[in-house]
């Protein structure tokens, strides 16, 4: 598996408790690593701060979706019932935002939801079916009850031996090397 031709992907450290990975994440953050991540079976409360992540920008996608939805709804109804084929029904006005509101409201929510979902996929670069992490058998436990931390080889501060020492001695973790094909 570890042939000479394969490129190193990074170092994978395994932890047994939420507290251990939490502490290791703070150490990594303070050590100034940038290309690294923790992998946990559930979101750990406070981990974003422990890793020093900025706030997720998903909300902007939601907002753009909602804005589009509302104005699509209003414009569509105005175009259909007032502009393209005006037809008086029950003596009511051809267009008012009042009767167009419920449909526009639903369109706002619909497109906000799509914006949120696809925004999240876009930011997370999902779907992504190839991942060097999946080649490690232990990593399967990351969706069960183990916690992993991976520092990638592309990180400017990465050096196989130095980083390995950092992870084993400072963070007290079992460490394995990951490779790409």
């Amino acid at each position, binding site marked *: 598996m570890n042939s000479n031709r394969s490129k190193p992907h990074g170092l994978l450290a395994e932890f047994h408790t939420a507290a251990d990975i939490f502490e290791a994440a703070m150490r990594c953050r303070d050590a100034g690593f940038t290309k690294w991540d923790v992998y946990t079976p559930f979101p750990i409360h406070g981990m974003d701060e422990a890793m020093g*992540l900025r706030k997720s920008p998903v909300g902007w996608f939601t907002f753009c979706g909602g804005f589009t939805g509302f104005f699509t709804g209003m414009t569509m109804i105005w175009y259909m019932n007032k502009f393209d084929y005006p037809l008086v029904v029950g003596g009511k006005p051809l267009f008012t935002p009042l009767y167009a509101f419920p449909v526009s409201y*639903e369109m706002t929510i*619909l497109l906000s939801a799509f914006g949120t979902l696809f925004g999240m996929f876009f930011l997370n670069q999902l779907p992504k079916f190839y991942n060097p992490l999946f080649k490690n058998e232990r990593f399967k436990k990351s969706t069960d009850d183990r916690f992993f931390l991976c520092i990638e080889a592309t990180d400017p501060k990465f050096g196989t031996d130095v980083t390995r020492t950092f992870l084993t001695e400072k963070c007290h973790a079992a460490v394995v090397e990951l490779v790409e094909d």
Partner: protein
Amino acid sequence: MASSGKSAAVKASEPPAELVRESLVLNNRSLGWITNAIAGVCEKPMPIWWWPAFIVSVGGMLTMFSLIAYLVSTGVGVWGLNHPAAWAWDITNFVFWIGIGHAGTLISAVLFLLRQKWRTSVNRAAEAMTIFAVACAGIFPVFHTGRVWFALLPGYLLPAPNANAIWPQFRSPLLWDVFAVSTYGTVSLLFWYVGLIPDLATLRDRSKGVMRRFFYGLFSLGWTGSNRHWSNYEKAYLLLAGLSTPLVLSVHSIVSFDFAVSVVPGWHTTIFPPYFVAGAIFSGFGMVLTLLIPLRSLFKLEDIVTLRHVDLMCKVLLATGSIVGYAYGMEFFIAWYGGSPYELYAFKNRAFGPYWWSYWAMISCNVISPHFFWFKKLRTSVVFVWIVSIFVNIGMWFERFVIIVTSLHRDYLPSSWGYFTPSWVDIMTFVGSFGLFMTLFLLFIRFLPVIAISEVKGVTPQADPHHPLGGAKGHH
């Protein structure tokens, strides 16, 4: 950064013993136990009872589809509805099913925003119920149009011009309803799927079979549990919860507009939107309990769906059931206080007219039965709760029947009075819709995790890096 200072502050704020909350998962189960218990349900072969249940459900579903084929090929005359009750069983069933869905969204979205952590044990199954109920609901309004191709083709429901270049008429609440229900179905599905992604990854990592690994792998999208992903994921989940909350309130409000915007006595009331929403939540929690009480004991999930969950859901039944009972009373008060003789007649006719039996079935199921839940002993007796939940389901079906049929069968002119009786096709189509619902639910149990694995883990003490069970050491 002063990370150690932060940890010290967290440690200092530990609550006194009497304020420590009871753990949501009983018997101090480990994270691995939770994975095995939940994923095990859909990995092991289904128990014996599943097969007869599935066969009966599929039979019901096929009955419904055959009767729909009969309806479409023959005409709406095969149903019992006719002038003056042009809406009857079909719309009753529609409102009944769409209402059931509301509990799923309430649990998944509203309780999430209110930080009610107990929801994690029940939200997955409740959301599945929502989606399947919306699927059942959609069938009735679509097929009550009879020549259904005119409804689905452009011009009537879809925003596209018909053969005469006329567009749909957006002043009508019926069209609002099309948008509300289809948005509701879609957003519920998206929300459910987002919640499923991490759990599908768990199943992918555990599965042995080629087919299972392929499909769980495909639908889990390559999820790794990366915290950079969780960060966006949690924000997206929160936003979807925030979007679903106004959505779920709007859906049954708009369904109630179908009635309230008309000028039919018994329908033309402003109390309808809140009354319908409360009724929907009441009926939905009834159905959640009907499904989850057997599920938790058949699959030995009592440590995750605990008696406390049953207790809390009964409290919701009590609260919403009281609102519904209040609304029934208030309708009568307004009918008298409003001074319209037609309105007053409509209500007298509901309680004492030819459909008196449906009114009193509704009252005994919806007004009386939830009040047993003032007593904790009854709220935690699962057999009793299950029986009451069935009564709630029955009562809420009757509520819609009462609103729709008794208001329509006698309005202003006695010359246009009538009496609706369902045909066998009406009855069997409704029975068959339970077949569709149960088929989908049984398949859900067979292939997907019935409880949100990652969310349940997230509320255990083991998940908390500042809790001793999460590995926190005392000294910092």
